[in-house]
């Protein structure tokens, strides 16, 4: 029983973090119908930025994540503005391939710069843990979880309450109409992608504080993002939070009861089942215009 409780707590904490990994991916997909296969590589890039700042400048990752986010925002903005915008109206093979090419480039670039070795961002609090009865709560994971939830809430507020956020929403719902209202779609798309990259960087820095990472993990973060975005309904940010928690729990429980690497298959199992049974996600209908295109 206590093992189950421990797994549940761990799963929830991990799930919050996964939600933060996925929320930017979901935003980009919902607003511009681009499945960004480079999203996982942005997460890992964020982790390396956090690591660099901590190792070479002694900056705590809780501060460093903001710097990493700023850098990734600029990079994300530029990638969308001068690259993805060029093919945003093309059939989906094209955007999938483009972002996959981008991912190859970034992952291999990181391999060359940082090597393929596993690293982690070590902090004083990561190894501390709180005891609540028989359940142990690692402080580092609790902090990462808290930040994940805060950032998701802040993102929802940003999107729903600010001019920029409303411009993003409007463009996502109907780009043509938004353009007629004087919203510059190119700029808004670039902002959205930049925002998504910044969120990935924060998530990456947090991943780095609680776990080891290497460039090779990029692919699995992209896939998890996809699973979570689908579970939550694309573009639905609270949905992403829910999807993240669910995947965290499923993986954690599976780790408790299943042997070997079956755990890795769980997320995909959930994905395929959900897609076949309930393609619009767990949380009702898609939040944005659900454009299903070929």
């Amino acid at each position, binding site marked *: 029983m206590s093992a189950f409780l421990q797994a549940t707590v761990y799963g929830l904490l991990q799930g919050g973090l996964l939600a933060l990994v996925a929320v930017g991916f979901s935003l980009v997909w919902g607003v511009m119908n681009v499945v960004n296969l480079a999203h996982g590589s942005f997460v890992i890039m964020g982790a390396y930025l956090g690591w660099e700042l901590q190792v070479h400048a002694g900056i705590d990752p809780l501060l460093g994540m903001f710097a990493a986010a700023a850098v990734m925002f600029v990079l994300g903005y530029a990638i969308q503005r001068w*690259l993805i915008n*060029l093919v945003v109206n093309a059939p989906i093979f094209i955007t*999938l391939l483009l972002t996959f090419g981008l991912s190859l480039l970034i992952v291999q670039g990181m391999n060359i710069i940082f090597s393929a070795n596993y690293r982690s961002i070590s902090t004083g609090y990561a190894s501390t843990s709180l005891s609540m009865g028989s359940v142990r709560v690692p402080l580092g994971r609790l902090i990462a979880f808290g930040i994940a939830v805060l950032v998701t809430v802040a993102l929802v507020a940003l999107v729903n309450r600010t001019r920029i956020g409303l411009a993003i929403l409007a463009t996502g719902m109907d780009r043509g109409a938004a353009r007629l209202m004087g919203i510059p779609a190119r700029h808004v798309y670039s902002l959205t992608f930049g925002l998504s990259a910044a969120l990935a960087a924060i998530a990456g820095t947090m991943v780095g504080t609680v776990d080891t990472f290497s460039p090779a993990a990029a692919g699995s973060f992209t896939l998890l993002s996809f699973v979570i975005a689908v579970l939550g309904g694309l573009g639905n940010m609270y949905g992403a939070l829910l999807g993240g928690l669910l995947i965290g729990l499923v993986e954690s429980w599976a780790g408790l009861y299943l042997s*070997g*690497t079956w755990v890795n298959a769980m997320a995909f199992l959930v994905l*395929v089942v959900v*897609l*076949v049974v309930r393609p619009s996600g767990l949380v009702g209908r898609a939040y944005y215009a659900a454009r299903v295109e070929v």
Partner: protein
Amino acid sequence: MSTVTEAEPSFDRQATGSRLDWQRMLPWGLLALLMAAMLGLQSQLYIGQERTVTAIFMFVALAQAWNVIGGFTGYACFGQVVFFGIGGYATAVTMVHWHLSFWLALPLSGVGAALFGAVIGLPLLRLKGHYFAIATLGVAEGMREVVTNVPALTGGGAGITVPTVGEDATTAYLGNDGFYLLFLGIAALSLVVALVISRNRFGFALRAIHQDEDAAGAMGINTTRAKVLAFSISGMLTGLVGACYAFQQVVIFPDRLFDVELTVLMVVMVVIGGSGTVLGPLLGAVGLQYLSEYLRHSYTEAHTFILGAIIIVAVVFLPQGFVNYVREARRSGDYSLLANVRRYRL
């Protein structure tokens, strides 16, 4: 919405009768000529070159297989490698546990992959666009874990060895020359299948589904049956290639047989060459695999990096693929690549 390039009057030729009969036969003639040339080429190659060309044959077959579901039917399968893995493991497992000859295991693997395609195709082909792409990707990743986690059957992560030497050998290893011919045969088979589909009723139905599935259904095409059949054929061809690959490699691992990068290579080759045509994926596979081998030798470390850059440049400047680009440019007289970029940009 998919943007399909301009009308291609393929059937008009047949309607106008014998006048253009030679044009109908031309691809078949060229294919036969190509095969003869490849057979002649073999004796001229060093061992290293022979291996390179063998690998090119393998990718010609894979690209053409993906073309059937992705190019003709318009369903972006991002888990195509699952058929490769199933074909490879079906061969290895039946050769090890049932002591089958490779020549029996090979067709069995093809049938197995085709059946698997039908079984997952029925639910998954109801999904469209990104959802289909990623659901198939999920199936491939999941299948890799399944294969990894039943070591009694598949050897698990430590791999499985195809019995080709010693007392257990069911079929002797073919050697470089043998595999050259084997993969040439598979490449020829996939080209023939693609060529037949591109010109018959079934291919016409697939094109209709690609261009507007609702309208295709309303005009009497059983879209479910056509899609599942296309997926099965595509899976069968991919499975056959996987079977040959397993035999060639002798020791196979789940991580290699279910490597997502293999899927992406198929997609890239088809898209860059020109999806939905027969010539495009052929050129894409030959060109990209040759380039890839060259990069691997010359820039070992940065090889993937350069490949990524090439993909990006290619999809931005040639989004409709090389063959379709040439076709349109010849019709309109406009060879500008910038016009291409303008087409899909925001």
